[in-house]
């Protein structure tokens, strides 16, 4: 197991290079929270069940990330500011595939 490097743009447009562990069953939303890149209460509101879309992210690199499941697709279809590259951070697990992932936290 190893760590991966992620490049995250926060809601103010500031870019952060962070290191994320692949062996702690964490996801992108949890990485954002653990580095406090979005205020508490504005991200991961439902805890990570794909039920609130507060962790919507725009994926800006070509990493091989898992396909969307029904729950995530349904939630995104009710979210706002959705783009082609929108995903819910809570549904993307940190794996070695994410090395160098470039993504942006969507507006609240």
């Amino acid at each position: 197991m190893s760590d991966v490097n992620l490049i995250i743009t926060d809601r103010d447009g500031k870019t952060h290079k962070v290191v994320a562990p692949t062996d702690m069953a964490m996801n992108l939303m949890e990485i954002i929270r653990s580095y406090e890149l979005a205020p508490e209460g504005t991200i991961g509101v439902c805890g990570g069940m794909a039920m609130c879309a507060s962790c919507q992210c725009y994926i800006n690199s070509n990493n091989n990330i898992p396909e969307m499941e029904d729950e995530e697709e349904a939630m995104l279809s009710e979210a706002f500011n959705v783009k082609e590259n929108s995903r819910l951070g809570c549904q993307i697990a940190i794996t070695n595939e994410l090395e160098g992932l470039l993504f942006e936290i969507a507006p609240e």
Partner: protein
Amino acid sequence: MIKTDILIIGAGPTGLFTVFEAGLLKLKCHLIDALPQAGGQCSEIYPKKPIYDIPGFPEILAGDLTKNLLEQSKQFEPGFTLGERAESISKDKDGIFTVITNKGTKHQAPVVAIAGGLGSFEPRKPPLDNISFYEDKGVEYMIKDPEIYRNKNVVIAGGGDSALDWSIFLANINAKVTLIHRRNEFRGALDSVEKVRELKNNNKINIITPAEITKLNGKEKLESIIVSRDKIDTEIKVDHFIPLFGLSPKLGPIADWGLEIEKNAIKVDTFDYQTNIAGIFAIGDVNTYPGKLKLILCGFHEATLMCQSAYQIINPGKKNIFKYTTVSGIDGFDGTRKEAKKPVVQAINE
């Protein structure tokens, strides 16, 4: 005017358990919640999802936990003000707090316990220009009086249970319902989807998918909306537009009560979870302190300790000692008594 000993803001698990712990100390509670039902997030967001870290319950559904907490607190006869948001607070010279809701309901208590979780649930508003101008002039995020929609042109937007359920309800009272959703698939209970399909086949509901509302029009009130489908814009005349995109929690007016706030949470002293204002406590997910974890079980612990200080505020100088329920039983305010069975003492040799 509602008067009580501890006024609890937020009827989620922590707020409900406070009723029980306060009851053991003979303190009466009243709860205010913005949602129309008790249970907080457990009943609003994930009632059918399991929780695995409630001590003594290897697995329990969030909805069942709420039911159990209501049952556990029932004997202490809590009062409820539901569907109203706590708006303002003031403290009189005798130290009594008055809390008024957005609907004007007044509550008085010497102790206030804020157990508001992530805040009160507010409807999520779609990012459309001028939408706030049309609020209550044709745009409604919640249905309060279904009768106003009878024989009217109503557009509902959303793809979840509430969009489906209200479409069915309003179609059945002869509203001319158009349901608009960004995808063809709806995320609702199977029988709701079936019912909507049936109403559509009988021309009782018009469904436009995959489509999005892009503009609202009208001089003084909402008159029409623009729906975009396959990059083609269509204008639809409407009397009412009801966007149903779920609820999201906001700390709301509590943020302006003079409490010390850090990271969207209320700072407390871990001795008894009191805030910077004496007599106001914050327990559960709404508070923060070094080492804080937003867990239901931590909320239970905080509620229990908080009640000890609440007792001292309400009964200054009056002696009391912590008791085990197994030893002393429980005397409900409703006259019921629960207690352990007495051991049988009998001689074996006559």
